[in-house]
């Protein structure tokens, strides 16, 4: 393609010189999106923020909870490859605390992933076959209104504190 071979390298060079972070160019031949990643500074002095190299996976998104609901993120406690259970509940289905939602395969051992609290399966964050590390969010379970679940409002922390924010 003429655009890719002749014009794209020059375009990339020009883009690199600009302060723009993202640029999309659409021609009759092709549509190209150019993106810059945050710059790194290995030895930083006061005031410099360094972004981690690790790429966010597409499903590192956790849905915002309603305030006052006991949301639990089900996180991996071993490193391995995530597989969903053959009888994986539908999103919206109620589950018991012991319900096995999937397992993590590591070194030929399968560690089950349980819901942890009784409630509604709100979301699946990890994809089938996705490598996961310690603490990575796999599922989100809605334990219902905090008062109904515990009978003591003050004992339940605010929803923002329960949910782990997406890792930057």
């Amino acid at each position, binding site marked *: 393609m003429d655009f890719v071979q002749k014009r794209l390298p020059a375009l990339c060079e020009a883009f690199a010189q600009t302060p723009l972070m993202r640029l999309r160019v659409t021609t009759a031949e092709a549509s190209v999106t150019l993106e810059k990643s945050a710059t790194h500074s290995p030895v930083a002095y006061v005031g410099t923020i360094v972004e981690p190299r690790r790429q966010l996976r597409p499903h590192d998104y956790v849905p915002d909870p309603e305030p006052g609901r006991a949301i639990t993120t089900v996180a991996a406690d071993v490193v391995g490859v995530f597989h969903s259970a053959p009888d994986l509940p539908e999103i919206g289905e109620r589950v018991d605390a012991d319900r096995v939602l999937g397992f993590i395969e590591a070194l030929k051992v399968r560690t089950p992933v349980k819901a942890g609290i009784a409630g509604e399966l709100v979301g699946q964050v990890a994809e089938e076959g996705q*490598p996961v590390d310690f603490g990575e969010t796999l599922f989100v379970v809605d334990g219902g209104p905090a008062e109904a679940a515990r009978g003591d409002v003050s004992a339940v922390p605010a929803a923002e504190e329960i949910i782990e924010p997406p890792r930057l």
Partner: protein
Amino acid sequence: MFNKVLIANRGEIELRIVRACHELGVKTVAIFSEADRNALHVRMSDESYCVGPPQSARSYLNIPNIVSAAEVAGVDAIHPGYGFLSERENFAEICASHGFKFIGPPAPVIALMGDKASAKKRMAEAGIPVIPGSGIITTVAEAKAFCASAGYPVLIKATAGGGGKGMRIVGREADLAAGLESASGEAQAAFGDGRVYVEKLLVKPRHIEVQVLADEFGHTIHVGERDCSVQKPGHQKLLEEAPAPRLQPEVREQLCAAAVRATRATDYANAGTLEFLVTDDGNFYFMEMNTRIQVEHPVTEAVYGIDLVRWQIRIAAGERLAVRQEDLKPRGHAIECRINAEDADNKFAPAAGRLGTVLLPGGPGIRIDTHIHAGADVPPYYDSLLAKIIAHDRNRPSAIARMRRALSETEIRGVATTLAVHERILESPSFAGAHTHVTWLREEVLQPPAA
């Protein structure tokens, strides 16, 4: 050469290994605990995997999670660094059985040298002088019998030990039972193995160690000696230098020759260090062998112009060690200061927190190995090493002056550090005269004799 290596460590040594890998064109995989999520070693690696919560036992010592991360990342080899899993033969075996090359010596050698009592026995059989010592102590009576014949004072040591843990000095028989129990308890907690043995305590010896390097084809060389006599109470090294000052050439020759002989006798491969105690009369005694890269390796690298960590990787990848003994000639003198997050005025109590300003020295002959930067967290869960400053110059007085210059430029705010105690060491006349020995720091600097 490997395509990808996982580094089973953290902090400055992880960075050191990452740098050697990147210079060889090898991709790097870091592991980290939740406490190290924003650590520099994670950012500098090509990929990273969280392997557990902050506690070492559940993260940096979590073999299943580490090996699983290696599988998921598809690495060829694993470098264990120092400390953590670097001298656990079961880890080396597990790496091998999962198809990962362990960058270090073979598991049986790690096992042999990791058991300090059996290592001593093996060295004695190879004709290397050893400190008079007992076997593993099973009863107090056994210990008493040994001490009665060897004479007090004695040193109780953990057979699985290292880094100064599980050691107790006992000056008389009345204190022996309590010392045994205390050392054994500390060893059990630190290494999961409470077995101890007893050695005669030598009078003001110097700690002099020899760096060795061997490839997997049997070519073995030494890369000179290091003097690590400046130690905190508790036998942890604080300052190291190369070459060892004030050492008779014959003693140096014998030490290095003994180190090579001992290494060859164990079918060794990769980097290692043989530690000796050297007394004023020129006698030396084998203490232990560390089957890994050491914290203080930079002083050897400076003086011999050799990249030890790069050779570790190349040797493990099956390359021949293309360095001949006769080509290795030391140049100048190098000193390393370990800047720890410790309060030297309060028994070196470890400090933790968040760093503020960090200004590190530079200029000719100065090398910094560190993972810290301004704003970095210093977690309380791991060892307290913040940075290593290495000064290299054409002779020892110049190296001392250069290090003093570098320390005066250094600023680390936010936690207590050992910067000030290093300044005191380097301005001391007895350090300038190279009169150090293993209890010198406590006697001459921390509790100086009344004027």
